[in-house]
């Protein structure tokens, strides 16, 4: 055969291309290929069909090359065809066909994510036929968004976890954070309330800050920082456990991927705001190719996961009567449950009655995307509605639209990208969470409704819980996040770009307390009704000009990035109260109120400025080093203390590319060892804290509006600093069918910004200051991904992740002299509770006993609360399985957490008082000599029993095992064969969230931060997705 450089006279020739995972070979005949390419892996091959145009062509002459690309004999659309070093690109269309201009001798690169890249040299052939092969080593090729730059997973030196829209779309959730639970090592997410629009608590690698509200990571949406501070106000936020959280505005449907940056190498480039980790949310972008239209409709139901086991009427009345007998008194006029006023034979399961409803969920999404190789677009919209478990008409509605436009100029040097998203939420919830009441109401409490259908007040002997539902909490949020990136390639190695972002959030919430909430016997007219109204506006803009230089030569690859950030955020909050209305129908109109009182009118301006840079060098794809640095300034610190510098170094060694291991690629297909060390900071302390001011209170006296000292003044506080160190190993075996990573990290934070607690005698409860204490978080994260089966029809992949961390207070000079002396212990975590040690019920007295640690004969908080209990999870993680057979796909995720938390004993009152108790309390002491779990009953007048019960709640009996395994998500879907619907792709699916909870916890649901609120719900949905 003639040499490949000769063009003339060729007819159809078939070339066999053998692709090895990292290298390629070009041959003219099968025989040649086998001979020259070295090992041949796999039996699939590329078939390259060529035909020669008649006539002579020279090597430099441009010609039009066309071809078809297939996968498993089906045309493959969207494959990128590039002429190397020439910036000419093309994309295969719906039929897998492409056209490109290239000269003979040019190298054509065919790439598509998830498939092995094909490279071949143009030999004057016009028509090519290429069959592509799926790449099991996908993971490493995937590009990870690291914030200011993108990096291939195999080359990254930092610790970044990622989930994609595939993981998110399987879950019927409304909050993006819910979609992350159990899927990422090191990321612990707890749902604080089951009410829609409720919040989530997120901690990345443990608690760094002594302050509970100083642990939020930095949220960035398409490069625009998104403030996660609450937009609500405690008086107007409805029944959620925490005030309104703006993260609910982020629409899970619009998300393409979520990357969480955890270690110094990844977060240092975010400098002062990266100490608690960074959550990068990337929204969906338009894709070139045929215009596709997708629509999804979903319906579902939900209910509470578990109820607590509470007493029935017989047990309850027996308890009450015994309590009275123990105290030696008879039921008084107000003891309606036992003095005959209420029917002793009634029984209502209040948990079912008040929180046992089913939630109705409706969800609709649609999107259109398409474009050419130069311009792509995506437009999507969605709507979601769900009701609640409470009786009555309550609902949460959310709708939004998302637009993305990308454009590249003809010469490929100029790129523009625009993304914008708008979300509106409308929430109508009861003003109070009925969960706590449902657990306390006496089982024989009267009926909710009278014979004539009105609320029953049973002659004013009780507060009908449904009356509380007449007080409503409404919330309306509209949120715009927009971002534009403009980039220009000045030189082949140098690109300058700038991103501009803008967010605008308006939030209005109101809470009404109409007099219809109260017993009509008190004849309270609407002149007592109250309206509380909060209006919050928050707007921010950010500009980040950057320049990036990158060059590849010989075996080296280097890139340098430099940029600046300018950001400003303006916020304003107005909280008003209206008292007294002519009629309860006018209660939402503030101008109808007799009295209007302004509770607070506050304004915040936050300004931020930074310069950052990154230098990355990789040699021979084996040795990689990454340096990042940032200098930040924040308006939250006083003059002279506003600026600080942060930096990190990360290095990686891809030892699987070393000569001595390259031959073992069948077994060890990938191995990387990486480490990083660096510093980051935190300025999450609220604005203006360094100022000594008086502020208006809205308190009016004698016509003068009051001014009060805002805080205790400390001008000296500055940045917290946080150093992170990590070492990790990433390995892939058997062509990456088994992918295992293990990481160990150690973070230390010092100079913590806290509100140092102060006794009330100082007039305030705390002062903002830097604490000279060092807190350490260290832990390990392990992930394992196995491709158990991968055949043409059947695939089964398992992913497992587990994280265990330990938080320790390393040093605290003069702890004994500070106000934290009774809260922290050196060598123990921050999130500890110091409690009494419970030593059982005294068989003679029937009272709880506790250990008198210092033996002085009395129990005092300072001396005897010495038992330390750690409320941080010991370990947590998830196990996910994805199974697909032909068109059917089943995904399920188990999430597990090992922790201790407050149990039901903490929440319920004293057994014997007029409140329902868990059934467990029936095992109680009755007479001397009894051995029992719980002490004697009392109606509240036995001082010793009340004191013992109060200490019981402050002892280690109130904090018990709350570990659980939850079948967090199950998703079953079936792709209808396309031929049934003439080319329309249709997928039917059923999804469930929190389906099953396995736990020993004595109480309702073990997932909460503050007890007494509605726990997360169990949700089932089913739906249909059409793609045209």
């Amino acid at each position, binding site marked *: 055969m003639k040499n490949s450089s000769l063009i003339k006279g060729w007819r159809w020739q078939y070339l066999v291309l053998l692709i090895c995972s990292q290298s390629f070979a070009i041959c003219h005949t099968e025989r040649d290929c086998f001979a020259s390419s070295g090992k041949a892996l796999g039996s699939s091959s590329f078939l390259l069909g060529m035909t020669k145009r008649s006539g002579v062509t020279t090597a430099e002459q441009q010609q039009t090359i066309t071809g078809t690309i297939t996968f498993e004999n089906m045309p493959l659309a969207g494959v990128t065809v590039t002429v190397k070093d020439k910036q000419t690109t093309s994309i295969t269309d719906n039929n897998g066909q492409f056209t490109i201009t290239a000269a003979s001798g040019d190298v054509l690169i065919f790439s598509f994510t998830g498939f092995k890249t094909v490279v071949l040299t143009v030999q004057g052939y016009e028509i090519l036929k290429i069959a592509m092969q799926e790449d099991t080593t996908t993971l490493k090729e995937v590009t990870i968004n690291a914030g200011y730059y993108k990096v291939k997973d195999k080359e990254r030196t930092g610790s970044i976890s990622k989930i994609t829209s595939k993981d998110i779309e399987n879950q019927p959730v409304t909050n993006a954070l819910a979609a992350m639970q159990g899927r990422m090592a090191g990321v612990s997410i707890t749902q604080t309330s089951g009410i829609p629009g409720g919040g989530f608590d997120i901690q990345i690698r443990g608690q760094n800050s002594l302050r509970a509200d100083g642990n939020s990571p930095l949220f960035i949406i398409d490069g625009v920082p998104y403030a996660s501070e609450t937009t609500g106000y405690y008086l107007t936020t409805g029944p959620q456990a925490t005030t309104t959280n703006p993260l609910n505005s982020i629409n899970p449907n619009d998300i393409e991927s979520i990357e969480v940056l955890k270690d110094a190498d990844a977060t240092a480039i975010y400098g002062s705001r990266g100490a608690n980790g960074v959550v990068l949310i990337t929204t969906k972008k338009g894709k070139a190719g045929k215009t596709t239209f997708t629509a999804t409709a979903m319906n579902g139901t939900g209910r509470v996961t578990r109820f607590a086991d509470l007493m029935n009427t017989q047990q309850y009345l027996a308890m009450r009567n015994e309590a009275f007998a123990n105290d030696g008194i008879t039921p008084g006029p107000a003891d309606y449950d036992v003095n005959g006023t209420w029917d002793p034979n009634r029984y209502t399961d209040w948990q079912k009655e008040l929180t046992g409803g089913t939630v109705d969920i409706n969800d609709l999404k649609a999107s259109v995307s398409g474009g050419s190789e130069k311009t792509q677009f995506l437009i999507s919209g969605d709507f979601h509605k769900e009701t609640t478990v409470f009786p009555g008409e309550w609902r949460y509605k959310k709708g939004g639209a998302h637009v993305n436009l990308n454009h590249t100029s003809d010469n490929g040097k100029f790129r523009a990208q625009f993304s914008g998203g708008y979300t509106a939420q409308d929430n109508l919830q009861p003003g109070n969470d009925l969960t706590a009441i449902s657990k306390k109401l006496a089982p024989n409490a009267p009926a909710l409704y009278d014979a004539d259908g009105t609320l029953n007040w049973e002659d004013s002997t009780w507060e009908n819980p449904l009356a509380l539902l007449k007080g409503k909490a409404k919330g309306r949020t509209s949120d715009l996040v927009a971002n534009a990136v403009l980039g220009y390639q000045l030189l082949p190695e140098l690109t300058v770009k700038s991103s501009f972002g803008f967010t605008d959030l308006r939030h209005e919430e109101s809470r009404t307390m109409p007099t219809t909430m109260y017993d009509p016997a008190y004849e309270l007219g609407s002149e007592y009704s109250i309206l509380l109204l909060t209006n919050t506006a928050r707007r921010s803009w950010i500009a980040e000009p950057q320049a990036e230089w990158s060059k590849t030569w010989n075996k080296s690859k280097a890139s340098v990035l430099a940029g600046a950030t300018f950001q400003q955020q303006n916020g304003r909050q107005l909280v008003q109260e209206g008292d007294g209305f002519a009629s309860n129908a006018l209660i939402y109109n503030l101008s109808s109120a007799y009295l209007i009182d302004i509770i607070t009118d506050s304004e915040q301006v936050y300004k931020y400025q930074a310069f950052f840079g990154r230098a990355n060098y990789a040699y021979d794809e084996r040795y990689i080093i990454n340096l990042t640095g940032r200098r930040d300034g*924040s308006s939250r610190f006083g003059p002279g203390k506003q600026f600080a510098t942060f930096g990190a170094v990360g290095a990686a060694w891809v030892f699987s590319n070393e000569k001595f291991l390259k031959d073992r690629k069948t077994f060890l297909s990938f191995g990387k060892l990486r480490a990083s060390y660096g510093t980051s900071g935190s300025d999450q302390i609220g604005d203006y804290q360094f100022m000594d001011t008086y502020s208006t209170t809205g308190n009016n006296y004698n016509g003068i509006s009051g001014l*009060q000292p805002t805080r205790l003044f400390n001008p000296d506080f500055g940045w917290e600093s946080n150093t992170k160190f990590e070492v990790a190993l990433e390995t892939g075996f058997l062509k990456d069918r088994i992918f295992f990573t293990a990481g160990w990290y150690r973070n230390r934070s010092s100079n913590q910004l806290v509100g140092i607690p102060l006794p009330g005698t100082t007039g305030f409860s705390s002062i903002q200051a830097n604490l000279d204490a060092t807190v350490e978080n260290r832990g390990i994260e392990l992930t394992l991904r196995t491709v158990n089966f991968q055949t043409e029809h059947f695939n089964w992949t398992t992913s497992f992740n587990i994280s265990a961390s330990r938080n320790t207070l390393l040093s605290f000079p003069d702890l004994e002299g500070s106000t934290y002396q009774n809260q922290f212990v050196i060598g123990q975590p921050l999130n500890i509770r110091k409690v009494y040690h419970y030593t059982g019920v005294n068989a003679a007295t029937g009272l709880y006993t506790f250990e008198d640690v210092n033996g002085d004969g009395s129990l005092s908080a300072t001396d005897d609360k010495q038992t330390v209990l750690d409320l941080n999870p010991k370990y947590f993680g998830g196990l996910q399985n994805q199974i697909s057979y032909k068109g059917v796909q089943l995904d399920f995720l188990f999430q597990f957490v090992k922790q201790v938390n407050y149990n039901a004993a903490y929440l319920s009152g004293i057994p014997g008082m007029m409140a329902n108790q868990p059934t467990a309390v029936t095992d109680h002491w009755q007479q001397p000599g009894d051995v029992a779990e719980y002490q004697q009953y009392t109606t*509240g007048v036995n*001082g010793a029993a009340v004191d013992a019960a109060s200490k019981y709640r402050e002892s280690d009996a109130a904090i018990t095992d709350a570990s659980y395994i939850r079948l967090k998500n199950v998703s079953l879907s079936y792709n209808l064969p396309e031929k049934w619907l003439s080319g329309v792709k249709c997928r039917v699916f059923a999804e469930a969230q929190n389906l099953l909870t396995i736990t020993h916890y004595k109480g309702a649901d073990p997932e909460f931060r503050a007890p007494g609120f509605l726990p997360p719900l169990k949700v089932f949905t089913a739906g249909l997705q059409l793609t045209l």
Partner: protein
Amino acid sequence: MKNIFLKFYALLIPIFLLWGCDNFVEVDLPSGQLTAPAVFEDVSTANAAMADVYAKLRESGALTGNGTGVSSLMGNYADELDYYGDSAAATQSFYNNALTATDGTVAGLWNNSYNEIYSANAIIEGVAASTGLQATDKNRLTGEALFVRALVHFYLVNLYSAIPYVSTTDYEQNRHVERLPVDVVYANIIADLEQAQTLLPEDASPERVRPNKTAAAALLARAYLYNGRWAEAANAASAVLNDANYAMENDIDAVFLNGSTSTIWQLKPSADGINTYEGSNFIFTAGPPPFVALTSELVSAFEPGDLRRTHWVGSITDGATTWYYANKYKEQMNTGTSVEYSIVLRVAEQYLIRAEARARQGELIGAKEDLNVIRNAAGLGDTPAVSQQELLDAVQRERRVELFTEHGHRFFDLKRNGALDAALSPVKPGWNTTDALLPLPEAELLLNPNLAPQNPGY
């Protein structure tokens, strides 16, 4: 090429320009805040700071008329009020005399009181450092702040016994304060009031909503009495009673109106139309009572023919049971314009103070005169008491029916006379001797060990 470099520089110039702009991160003071020194340079902002202190007294702490103030809480704690509300609410523990150191209301009383004291100290220090205020304004503001400081400490020492006396805003000192013995606390209170008396204006403020010299004298009289200094108590009370501007009302229903001549100092509501928290909390229109009702012991303590029994006590009956409520303040709802303000100091109390002080000193005739003023105003005849002990007992009985549900007088009187156990053990099943004192909040003890020991029984 030129184009490229031009574009390059064009993009970089803004970066370099702003590199120099380090003051990009400076922010102005937000609207709604003023620097502390600026507040005391201008009399209207200084007045606003003082106004806020009064508003705080009205809304929270010991003196508020709502459910967290001592009028309601100590009324329930002693034998004035029966509690009918939600057993999970804070007042239940007070009613049961079953308080614990972790009780939130107890902590609230402590913390709010010290916050009021801080604000008062901030005013004293700010005014002293001011260069822009006139001397008359400086004196008035300092006098008012000293008055408030003494007033709040007075309630603290009567609730918790030995307490720290805070007279500076310096948090470094205040976080290590120790509990001072009761006598030392009273000495400080009296010193503050005596100084306030010299600084406060002679004339009453419009509507008597801010304290003046006479108010300081009235509170001094009470402090001397509680501290056992009889002669000084009588003198201070005389100073008040000799002021012609303050006299007993003839019409018993007018005593608690905001225009009453017997009021020495009252707290003005936040807006016109609002009346008192006491009125809205104590009055009910249908039984059973939603919140509290007067105890049968109190209702039967009135002598026959006592106008206060008919005018200051209301009743509701459903045919089978009758409940009584405190009707001193008669407005439960808002009215077109306010008619009642919450009264802290009034003339009747001064007569009773002087009667007791005189009786203690053996001036039995003078004591009888003062006691009879009160009795006659209530439509009762002169007191039959003759001996010193009989007179003292008669004064205590009179105080009970005159000052009921007003800022914990009943509880404090029983305590200072050592009569708590005798009066309360028979009627309150949860009563223990150690309940004479409230517990110090546990959180405070954990943050400041100098506050140890905790009060006995907790």
